[in-house]
């Protein structure tokens, strides 16, 4: 074990580690700025807590890096069952805020099982897909079991309701199935099926979700209601200009015109205060992280590691794309956090642990 450890330390991927910590730092700064002036003395409790989450997350990241990722495969179904269990608990006894039950109150942390579910779905999906596909790739028949594995947590998350996480679960599963070796023809059929099913999904949307969709297509239809988020976010980002208004000087965030500014719209806080330069820096960090994740996948020792790296990278990518797309008015508002940056213990810790897994895959690429 000792010898192995040294090699792992030798091959420790500082790129992922530094990028993750840099993003977490940017997030902390944004939370600090968004809450600046809320309390008269000292730091806002939100900042202190976020700092604690980063500490816990970083520790977990290092631990996960030292951990052999292959054992995750062994316990994948257990982990999956645990996540489903938590989702059921939250549905039964969850703590509800703003009309949706998403959290289990643990006292020190409001655990958000949907964050766990993201990792669990990736893990179980990868575990199932690690077998080589037959010649010509998987067809529709092979996709049935992964679809069921996805459906259970996805439905539970939708019931909360948390459209954003459900969407991420679907997107990340689709990504893994495709990369894992889905038959092109089957991929095309599934894509067309999804396109045809989309209008039907309209009926299953909650009224507020429909409103968000409508207001996305025409924000001015209800500027003080559901279009408000998009309009205020665009104003915040655009008013930042090239170099931003400076730390603590973003009026949109400071004066509370920006909604959900420590979570879903934290990107707007950053972009308002640090401008185009700042948003390019943040986007650059994500791009580097995603590129590095893809590189790790490409150089992984085995199919399991490669797909696991794709899964983790995919979570980051999809959340970044949807969150920034939403903040800049390119996508409708769905509650998705900016990974590693948004305030929130569950999300931050889960993401940093996932980064540890990425490091672990990288470190072991020459082993066994």
């Amino acid at each position, binding site marked *: 074990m000792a010898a192995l450890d040294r090699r792992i330390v030798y091959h420790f991927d500082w790129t992922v580690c530094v990028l993750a910590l840099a993003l977490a730092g940017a997030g902390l700064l944004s939370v600090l700025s968004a809450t600046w002036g809320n309390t008269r003395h000292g730091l806002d409790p939100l900042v202190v807590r976020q700092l604690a989450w980063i500490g816990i997350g970083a520790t977990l990241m290092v631990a996960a890096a030292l951990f052999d990722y292959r054992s995750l495969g062994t316990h994948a179904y257990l982990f999956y069952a645990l996540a489903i269990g938590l989702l059921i608990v939250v549905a039964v006894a969850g703590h509800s805020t703003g009309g949706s039950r998403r959290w289990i109150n643990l006292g020190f942390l409001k655990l958000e099982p949907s964050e766990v579910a993201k990792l669990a779905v990736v893990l179980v999906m990868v575990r199932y897909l690690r077998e080589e596909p037959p010649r010509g790739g998987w067809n529709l028949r092979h996709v049935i079991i992964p679809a069921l594995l996805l459906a259970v947590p996805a439905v539970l998350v939708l019931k909360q309701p948390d459209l954003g996480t459900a969407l991420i679960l679907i997107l990340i599963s689709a990504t893994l199935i495709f990369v894992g070796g889905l038959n092109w023809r089957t991929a095309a059929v599934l894509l067309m099926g999804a396109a045809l099913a989309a209008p039907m999904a309209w009926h299953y949307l909650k009224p507020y979700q429909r409103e968000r969709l409508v207001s996305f297509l025409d924000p001015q239809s209800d500027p003080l209601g559901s279009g408000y988020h998009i309009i205020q976010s665009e104003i915040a980002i655009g008013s930042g200009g090239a170099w931003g208004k400076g730390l603590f000087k973003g009026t949109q965030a400071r004066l509370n015109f920006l909604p959900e500014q420590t979570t879903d719209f934290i990107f707007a806080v950053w972009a308002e205060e640090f401008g185009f330069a700042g948003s*390019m820096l943040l986007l650059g960090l994500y791009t580097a992280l*995603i590129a590095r994740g893809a590189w790790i996948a490409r150089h992984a020792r*085995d199919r399991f590691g490669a797909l696991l790296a794709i899964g983790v990278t995919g979570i980051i990518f999809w959340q970044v794309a949807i969150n920034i797309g939403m903040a800049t008015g390119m996508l409708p508002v769905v509650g998705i956090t900016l990974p590693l940056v948004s305030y929130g213990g569950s999300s931050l810790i889960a993401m940093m642990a996932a980064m540890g897994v990425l490091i672990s895959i990288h470190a072991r690429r020459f082993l066994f």
Partner: protein
Amino acid sequence: MARYTRQARNRPIPRLEPRITGLTIVLMLVLGAGAVRLYYLQLIKHHQLSELADRNRIRLQRLPALRGLVYDARHRPPVDTRPSFDAVMVPEDSPDVVTTANRLEKLLGEDGVVKKLDSADDQGRPDFDPVIVDERLNWPQVVALETHQLELPGVSLQVNPRRHYIYGSLAAHLLGYVGEVTVRDLNRLPDYRMGDEIGKFGLERTWEASLRGDSGGQEIEVDSVGRRLRLLREIPERPGNSVVMTLDLDLQKVAEDAIGDRAGALVAIDPNTGYILAMASHPTFDPNTFAGGISTAAWRELTTDPSHPLSNRAIQGVYPPGSTFKIVDSIAALEDHTLTPQTAYNCPGGMYYGGREYRCWRKQGHGSISLHRAIVESCDVFFYNVGERLGVDRLAQWAHALGLGRKSGIDLDNERSGVIPSTEWKMRRYGERWYPAETLSVAIGQGYVGVTPLQLADLAAAVGNGGTLYKPQFVKEVDALDGTPVKMFPPVVENQLHIDPEVLDIVRSGMAGVVNQPDGTAHAAKMDNVIVAGKTGTAQVVKEAQGQRTKENALPEQYRDHGWFMAFAPADHPQIAIACIIEHAGHGGSAAAPVVKAVMQKYFELNPPQGGPPAKDPDAGKHYAVDPLAD
């Protein structure tokens, strides 16, 4: 093979690689699209979105400027600013605006609250903007409002500065009044906001631009719920300038008191400047009733009152000038040489013309009479002859030149021009030719002729000063808050008439006789220390009665004639010229002359007569020096 094996060892997942590569490319493209969108928002649309951000956080709070004061010629203000308790309502703070508004109306015993809220809503004012729903609450209303505060969510009391007219109705027509700006005004005047005071009438209206000042503003940073956080910028308001009138409040008071309860008007002018010294019109009104937003009932009462209290008779009242017009006859005929001072006509008490009898006011007649005595005793028959020889058009030319039948250009709204008939005027107006007999009526200032009191005061001033028509002005100066003059208004010569000084001498001596000779028609206006020159007139109310004079007191009041008197003094170098009409009062010598005398007495008490000592004998007016102003 070995090479393949080594490659295979280096690439343990050969079948995944192309898709990972493909995926990576797609992901990078998506992130690139995000970068493009950010470039668009933050660099291209930056300016526009910055503005929106500022509009979000910055509220503009207006600081209305204090309205400028008005002073009389001796710097005494007839207006000031008083605190007014106003009921203010923030619609947003009331869960049920209509119920609250109805409750408030009931409590205050006044309607209009709902109307004010509606009109604020129509202007698109945001719900967090306070609306003044009722102004100038009296003490019981203030107490009621305070007591029932809890039942009136969103309603509060606010103290606002409001215009107050210290002397109530004194000079009301000239000063005018202020009121709340109307929706129509708001569309026209971008600087005004609902609830602002605006001059609606009189000086307040015509001098609005000077009095109003510039409202200041505060830029206040607010958060998303509208809480005020800090003051970003403040533009102090600039109080309105004060307007210094030419009016003398003492004189004004005497004039109004002298008119008393009768309907009538008086205009006093400085003949050397055209400055208005007093301008009275009765019945009148109290401008304070308007300043707080007049109630519908009070407004209806004022506008439907048959005595027209809102009308400024001094410039809006058009009356036949009666015998005062004989001064125009005299000047015109003398200048045209159709008359000499020696020309004599016989007055048997009337004359036949065109198959009809035209009577003199004096039934027994004046016998053989020439100009001086004709003016003094106001012989109608003499002037029938003068007019007949002169012709109506020549007369009209002179009347126009002397300022009659046209607007004087005074800075007040609704001035009327009056009527000076001519053949051309009649053709235009009635499509009929002029009948020579009508000239006779015109010659004694009846028939179609109509003049305003201001015009007659101008005429008196011009005759007195040697033929200069000044533009009548009632403001001589606009001062800044600290008293430094911003603008001065020197006298403006409207028309310089070239009348033979001798002609004016003859007329003036006649006018001096009217007052000072025992047989003059206005002997009642004679003063001890000053020689007054004047002319009486009687404006017929009932046209049918023309030529057949009835005994005054036999008629019901509304058919009785109006009495005119116009005068200037001292006769040889006048300092004041006055025209006065008292409606339905009969003869001018008995009704209007005492009013004029009262004003003159007050004037000379305040401004002792200058120049030569008053002449002793009543005919002294005949040989005073030629007025230097006449060229």
